[in-house]
């Protein structure tokens, strides 16, 4: 059963093209059903993310490709010739390799990003619920998810943050472990600080306090994080009660001085304090970083962490590619072997019929014989048939993954052995 994938991604198409073809979550079932209804298509799934749109099908013949391209052009309301410039068309083993790489995050804009695994799962689950997956695509889906999991577990490719806000969260976890139950103090309303506080809020920290020169703005931000606005001049009080401090004010001077932190740590009985200075010019005095129990990171430090993580991910991608190559080979062999099963069974039945008929004739001609003699002749005939079948079966099991070559070999074997 040939596998075909037609699609475009962030490398082959600009965002103007991707957004025209992109499928909203609510439209995914309808789009998947439309793809399945194309003539010649036996199984279908549609993967749509902000960086890629791909139609994955199993089909009886490759002529369906033309119809799929037409359908995509129609869906994007664009000229076929225009769309074709951005499309890639993959076949058989290349589809398997591509999907394994996509689900593992190896084909993503940021290598190893974790969301793509969930998006691939969603595409196939939608198709599964609609009944548009045939047995080949179902196996492909299951194996894709297994490979993606293995790549992530074995290489740890998606483990470390590659953006400044996430790098801050990763460091917070290295200090505190579980972030639930922690209190966060956001100083100022800079964009990066807001984003970091937002991510921390998603990690279910206990409380976010917001201090800003404008109390109204502080209240507005606090509402976003289900937190509380505090007066800026009460900094000392809240510094002692909070575990993470994010400074992101527009002040041209230091807002947090070493004596603030010393007092806070004394009040906290030297429990660790993580200070994130995202402001330029800096808001936290660099000497704070030398105080025991205080961990200070500024925006450059965090950027370095993110860059180092990205380099590490790229190194891990090499090991991940090796896993994918091995898995593609194993999956290809499995599919080919399955594809050969009906012919092998037919071949065995046909030769067994011949053997049984000829044995019967032979036994009639020979006349009476002992049970042992009869068993020896039967064994001889069975072994001979097995020997004759050995190489044809081997050839069928390890055929090429090109469907046309497989079909050609199957036809030849059927012809030689007189199968219908």
């Amino acid at each position, binding site marked *: 059963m040939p596998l075909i994938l037609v699609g475009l991604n962030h490398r082959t198409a600009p965002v103007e093209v991707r957004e025209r073809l992109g499928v909203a979550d609510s439209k995914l079932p309808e789009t998947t059903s439309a793809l399945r209804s194309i003539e010649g298509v036996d199984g279908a799934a549609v993967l749509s993310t902000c960086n890629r749109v791909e139609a994955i099908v199993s089909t009886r013949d490759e002529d369906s490709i033309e119809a799929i391209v037409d359908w995509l052009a129609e869906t994007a309301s664009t000229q076929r010739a225009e769309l074709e410039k951005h499309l890639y068309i993959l076949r058989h083993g290349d589809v398997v390799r591509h999907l394994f790489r996509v689900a593992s995050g190896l084909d993503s804009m940021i290598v190893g990003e974790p969301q793509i695994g969930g998006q691939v799962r969603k595409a196939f689950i939608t198709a599964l619920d609609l009944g548009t997956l045939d047995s080949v695509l179902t196996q492909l889906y299951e194996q894709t998810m297994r490979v993606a999991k293995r790549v992530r*577990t*074995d290489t*740890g490719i998606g*483990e470390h943050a590659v953006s400044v806000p996430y790098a801050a969260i990763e*460091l917070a*976890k*290295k*200090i*505190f*472990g579980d972030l639930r139950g922690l209190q966060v103090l956001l100083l100022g309303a800079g964009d990066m600080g807001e984003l970091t506080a937002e991510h921390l809020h998603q990690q279910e920290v206990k409380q976010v306090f917001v201090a800003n020169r404008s109390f109204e703005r502080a209240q507005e931000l606090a509402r976003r994080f289900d937190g509380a606005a505090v007066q800026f001049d009460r900094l000392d009080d809240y510094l002692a009660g909070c575990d993470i401090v994010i400074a992101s004010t527009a002040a041209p001077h230091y807002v947090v001085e070493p004596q603030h932190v010393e007092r806070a740590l004394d009040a906290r*009985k*030297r429990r*660790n304090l993580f200070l994130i200075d995202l402001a330029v010019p800096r808001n936290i005095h660099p000497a704070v*970083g030398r105080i*025991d*129990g205080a*961990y200070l*990171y500024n925006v450059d*430090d965090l950027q*370095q*962490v993110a860059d*180092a993580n990205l380099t590490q991910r790229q190194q891990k991608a090499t090991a991940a590619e090796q896993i994918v190559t091995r898995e593609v080979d194993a999956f290809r062999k499995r599919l080919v072997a399955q594809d050969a099963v009906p012919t092998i069974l037919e071949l065995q039945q046909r030769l067994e019929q011949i053997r049984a008929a000829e044995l019967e004739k032979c036994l009639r001609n020979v006349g009476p014989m002992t049970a042992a003699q009869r068993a020896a002749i039967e064994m001889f005939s069975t072994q001979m048939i097995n020997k004759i079948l050995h190489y044809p079966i081997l050839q069928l099991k390890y055929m090429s993954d090109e469907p046309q070559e497989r079909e050609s070999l199957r036809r030849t074997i059927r012809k030689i052995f007189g199968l219908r």
Partner: protein
Amino acid sequence: MTLAATDTLYVALAFYALGTIAALGSLFTKVKRLQHYGLLMMIAGFVAHTGWIGTICTRTGHPPITNLPEATAFVGWVVFAVELALWIRYRVYAASFFVYPLVLLLLTISAVAGEQFAPLNPGLRSNVFTAHLLLTTIGVAGMLIGVAFGSLAFIQDRALKEKRRGRFWEWIPSLDVCKRVSYHALAIGFSIYTAGLLAGILWSYRTTAGLMELRVKQVGAMVAWVLFAVLLKQYIAGEFRRKRTVLLSACAFVAVLVAILGISR
């Protein structure tokens, strides 16, 4: 029959050696799978080790803590049991870089010492004496784990302060977990060890009418007790980050080893 002549001991040693090699290999190659294999090897070794401890108990009719090979085998066994419990609770792999070689070292000492199974001196057949041996051994194991996690906390603190990831970065859990485990292991281990020493003094007083003799093991045990007491005070004061705390941990570790190695002297 010498202690070194039993198969389960060699099986345990072989598995521990493989586990240690795999764990250290993962540190240098950063292949996570090696850590899993290392842990499985260590667990297999632990099973054989348990069999070996059982063999000693069956043949001598007393807990395996009366001479050097018995004591090192038992301390190593308890250390790994505590490490395994902590792994189940915190999934901490980094401690394995310290604990696995330590367990291997202790069992190797047990194997090469080659002393005879020691029939228990009738004078030592006492519940107080047994309690003394068991409590000090378990206390030592707890304190060694505390030192291992304390070292991890120190390494993690340095890495965070200097903004430089070392080789251990990926394997070490959060600083808070390292601090908590090291403090609890030290505090609990020290309390049990103290109770064990008191039981020893009591037994000595009963049998010899003196507080204790001053031989290698007694001096080593008392020095270790003082060093661990100071170490615990440092932890309570939050001074695990100081270099002198690390130095103190190393000295306490050596004192404990001296006390164990001097058990027959």
